[in-house]
């Protein structure tokens, strides 16, 4: 009963919308006029579209670089978890990117990267060099955007791991110390196994975050220069809203959905497996 409203909403908004998206992807539609059945031609066109492969490649770059977030978050969490004075303030400072809306983060990093007055140009200027215009360089732009997006993602992983570290069994750590484990062996054999579930959640959330990246691209580059920083989610948005090609956009969305579904299936499988073990 308690989950009924949520389930209902989920059913209508998510499932129905997804099904409709798949349906729309078989049509040529400008969003207002007649829908015209075109079968698979949207997909055929998509797989011939160079822009699609740029987006896909960029999504892979996002995914690859985002994989840094869980280990970096864990490293920071271990550091912040040390009983050193002032760590409470440090912890709260590390929460800041989580509080900021990602649009804000995007805008802030756009300033940082700005070649005329940005922080980056200041640093480069200090060494007498000229800062590259990262956001208008088609080779660096995706990396620059991902670096900006990594900031809150690392903070998110950090919070997850900090919570996990708070839940460590004191007796187990004690047993490890009695058994002579310290440093890396302690981390590897005693601490990390206890963080397994948290790590898994951090990893899953990071994968999904990388795949549905959209807002940072929209705010920082609008996919530019020349579409070199688009990702699938942004390309879908651009095709549907700006180019009035809802059918084509829906086809991109469907492809993205399939990719995500693979990860979600893996996620659910791993999530359900320990429960079966316990039964």
């Amino acid at each position: 009963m308690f989950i009924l409203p949520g389930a209902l909403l989920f059913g209508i908004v998510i499932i129905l919308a997804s099904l409709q998206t798949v349906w729309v992807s078989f049509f040529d539609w400008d969003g207002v006029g007649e829908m015209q059945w075109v079968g698979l031609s949207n997909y055929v066109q998509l797989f011939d579209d160079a822009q699609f492969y740029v987006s896909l490649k960029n999504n892979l770059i996002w995914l690859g670089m985002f994989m840094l977030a869980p280990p970096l978050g864990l490293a920071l969490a271990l550091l912040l978890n040390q009983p050193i004075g002032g760590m409470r303030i440090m912890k709260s400072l590390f929460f800041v990117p989580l509080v900021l809306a990602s649009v804000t983060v995007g805008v802030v990093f756009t300033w940082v990267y700005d070649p005329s007055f940005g922080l980056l140009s200041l640093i480069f200027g200090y060494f007498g060099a000229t800062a590259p215009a990262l956001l208008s360089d088609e080779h660096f732009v995706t990396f620059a955007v991902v670096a900006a997006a990594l900031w809150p993602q690392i903070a998110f992983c950090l919070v997850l791991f900090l919570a996990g570290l708070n839940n460590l069994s004191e007796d187990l750590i004690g047993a490890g110390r009695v058994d002579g484990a310290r440093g890396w062996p302690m981390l590897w054999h005693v601490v990390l196994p206890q963080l397994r579930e948290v790590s898994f959640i951090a990893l899953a959330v990071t994968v999904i975050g990388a795949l549905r990246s959209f807002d940072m691209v929209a705010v920082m580059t609008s996919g530019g220069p020349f579409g070199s920083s688009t990702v699938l989610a942004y390309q879908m948005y651009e095709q549907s809203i700006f180019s009035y090609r809802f059918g084509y956009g829906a086809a991109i969305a469907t492809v993205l959905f399939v990719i995500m579904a693979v990860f979600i299936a893996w996620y659910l499988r791993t999530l359900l497996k320990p429960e079966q073990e316990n039964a």
Partner: protein
Amino acid sequence: MASVEIQNVQKHYGSFHALNDINLSVEEGEFVVMVGPSGCGKSTLLKTIAGLETVTSGQLLIKGRDVTRLEPGDRGIAMVFQSYALYPHMTVAENMGFGLRMAGRPKTQIDAAVARAAKILRLEEQLDKKPKQMSGGQRQRVAIGRAITRSPDVFLFDEPLSNLDAALRTQMRVELSTLHAELGSTMIYVTHDQVEAMTMASRIVVLNRGRIEQVGTPLDLYSNPANLFVAGFLGAPRMNFVTGKVVEAQGRSARIVCAGGLGVALDDLVQPAAIGEAVTIGIRPEKLRINDAGSAIAFGGQVRLTEYLGRETILYVDAGDLVTTGSDSGTGAFTAQIGEIRPFQTAAPVSIAFDARDAYLFAADGRTISSPKPVARL
């Protein structure tokens, strides 16, 4: 050479003194049980021996070596935790061999040590299981096995049986005593259960509020408690305590009058009593006699409750103005333990009697100033 030597150990948490000037020497092969109410510092003391807690001041020696600043893994100790603290992702064999693995021992040596421990604890069939698949008693066996494989100089046990049900606890108690006899190792065992203390210990250390109240063999502490606290802590059901005032004192003799006008005369005090001093008389439940004439000291009461324990009867008796302090009933009723089954009606009038030579006397500051005359010593 003492196996464990604790010298002037203090442990302060801010202004709270968890351990106050602890001095204790544990001999090679002894089974020492540290016992006391919760918060008395017994677990803290064990953890400082293990090295899981640092000391504020003082020294710890294990086999003559100063280990005060050493890491737990370097102290030659092994510890068994109340929560078992098994590594959940490792098999039983891996759990038991982990300490040796960390010490960099070769695999053959680890396997041999694990096999030996598994044989002692009858865990041979379980070696490939994960802790999750085992019962509480088996898990505690694995935890003990993990301690055995390290062949430590000292075994430390932190309330290892508290999470087990009563029947299993009795069984494990016997097993642990047997294990101690087999291995002959030094063992330090913390518990709040005085039955475990009485049955397993070669010596008991009674702790209270971060101080050692008394150290001695179980029977010694039971018959010659150093103070009111030890007298009240050891023995089940608890000793009956009645407060009174010294009205006559002469040399080593004193006459005490309690509420309700009950007079008790005691001699052979370890120190002279002063007239007007507030004292406490203690009498063990098994020394109270019900409806049995011929005793020097007797008073009347009313049965509040009777408990039949199969081979003995526990009787709670209200005696008007004459109330006990801190006894099991919590209501001021006297507790009497009768070594046979005898029926009593609730609210029936009975007479209670005891001999002066069975009574303890405690001074106002709690120190024992008179104990019953010693009976046969073991």
